[in-house]
């Protein structure tokens, strides 16, 4: 498997605080790699290190098998990026702004029109950007990243500020890019649903350490759905299922979970419980999802803080 990005044992600390701890990442060529993590996990730091904004003291970063050092700049010609909020010179028009990147990367001026058309901003070509809404600014920043169809796109929260239609457009665009242009997309987002719909590969970073890296297909196939049953007599229900060769797990005195359940089995299981004379307060089907997996791996600070 050819790798577009290869990060090995990368560490970073600010004022004795370790932000990244021996991180390893492998992004295959042509993949849409969803990079997930809580706030403060170190995602932005890693992205800034990939782009040479921050320097590494230990570990390696390779782009297309080429080792990158802290002073290297040539590799950036093949990278389009959007880091955090859009950095726009608001007194300029989109045409003037995108021309800056074209000029530095040596791209043809027609690349500006193409990029603006992709993000549906052609109509605002010559309007100073200080009149633009947040969503429009985000589109311009995205157009800047897409200029010249770079081999690698590094995007940090690209759908920030976009309306639902805009988010859908960008999702389709990012998904289709590897096929259309052979690009690799490295995408960081808090929107797990967006990542699940867009990414082919996923990496989860937690407190500066990689918790998981896998293709999304493999990951979802390993995850099973479950059925949660809330009943006053969960212990008795567990025994009942045991007699019927159905394995279950007692979560609490009133909460029983049956693992590896298909959606089509739910109705039968519920009927079976009621016919057996158990009081069923609630029945909840848990679809395997990236969100569930993410919460299992990194937990939710809000949920952890909540008293039981």
């Amino acid at each position: 498997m050819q790798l577009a990005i290869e990060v090995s044992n990368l560490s970073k600390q600010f004022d004795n605080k370790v932000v990244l701890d021996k991180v390893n990442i492998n992004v295959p060529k042509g993949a849409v790699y969803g990079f997930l993590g809580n706030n403060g996990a170190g995602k932005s730091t890693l992205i800034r290190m990939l782009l040479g904004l921050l320097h590494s003291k230990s570990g390696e970063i390779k782009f297309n098998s080429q080792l990158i050092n802290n002073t290297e700049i040539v590799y950036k010609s093949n990278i389009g990026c959007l880091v955090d909020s859009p950095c726009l010179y608001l007194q300029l028009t989109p045409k003037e702004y995108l021309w800056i990147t074209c000029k530095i990367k040596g791209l043809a001026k027609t690349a500006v029109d193409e990029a603006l058309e992709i993000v549906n901003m052609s109509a605002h070509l010559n309007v100073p950007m200080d009149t633009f809404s947040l969503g429009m600014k985000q589109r311009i920043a995205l157009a800047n990243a897409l200029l010249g169809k770079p081999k690698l796109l590094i995007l940090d929260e690209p759908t920030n500020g976009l309306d639902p239609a805009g988010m859908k457009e960008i999702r389709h665009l990012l998904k289709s890019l590897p096929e259309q242009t052979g690009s690799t997309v490295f995408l960081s987002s808090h929107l797990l649903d967006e990542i699940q719909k867009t990414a082919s590969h996923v990496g989860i970073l937690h407190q500066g350490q990689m918790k998981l890296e896998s293709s999304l297909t493999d990951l979802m196939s390993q995850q099973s759905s479950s059925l949660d049953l809330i009943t006053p007599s969960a212990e008795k229900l567990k025994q009942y299922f045991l007699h019927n060769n159905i394995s279950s797990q007692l979560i609490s005195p009133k909460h029983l979970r049956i693992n590896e359940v298909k959606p089509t089995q739910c109705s039968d299981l519920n009927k079976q419980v009621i016919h057996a004379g158990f009081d069923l307060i609630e029945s909840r089907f848990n679809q395997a999802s990236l969100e569930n997996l993410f919460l299992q791996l990194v937990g939710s600070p809000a949920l952890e803080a909540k008293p039981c």
Partner: protein
Amino acid sequence: MLIKLIHIELLKTKRSLALLMMFLSPLMVLLVNLLLLLNNKGVMIGEKGWSIFWLQNYAMWGYFMMPLYIALITALLNGIEHRTNGWRFMMTLPIKQKDLFLAKLILAWLYLIGASAVLFVSIVTSIVCLEVFGINGADMFSFEMSQKLIYTTIACLAILTIQHIISWRWKNIVVPLGLGVVATMSIMQFSHSKYWHFNPWTYTLMTTNGAAPTGQTLAMVYSLSMTLVLTLTALYWLGKREVRC
């Protein structure tokens, strides 16, 4: 790459105060001197010739307006990046911080040359107009006076570099502007002292106030040497610096 970057930096100043100030700053100097001249009904010009008018304009430009203009221009050129997180944008492109630093420094100097040219042309224009309106004097155009403007433009390189470094490093515009104002106020005190060499803000005054030729040459040599040392130090520092904004 440097030429490309200067072109880009010039584009960034489009629709900003920089271009307006390039015209406004020298014209304000001329206006003040014109008012002084008209107030004494051109008597001094009749007695001493136009060289006194040239000198007054250059002196006011060199020790008052030019240092403030430099503080403003360097703050504006770097403020564009501070305001918009432009450092982050520029550094994700295949360019070096060193090149960007030099491009901004050269552009600031070009803006200064532009303002000096505006001052020169506006003085010539005003002299021609005043002659038409009956204020006459000898030495309408003096080579020596024009030479002073070139010397001043060289002598100010040191403060241009200092202000550029300060504006690059500090996001808050008050820091470079405050330094510019305080240092400009110190010019008169230092210029009469034997320690004038240690205050780069006095170098411009040494090239305009009729100091001995050795003083003028020293001021330019000091300015160029200081510019070289400061620029090399800044470039070394930038080679190691991370972009954390």
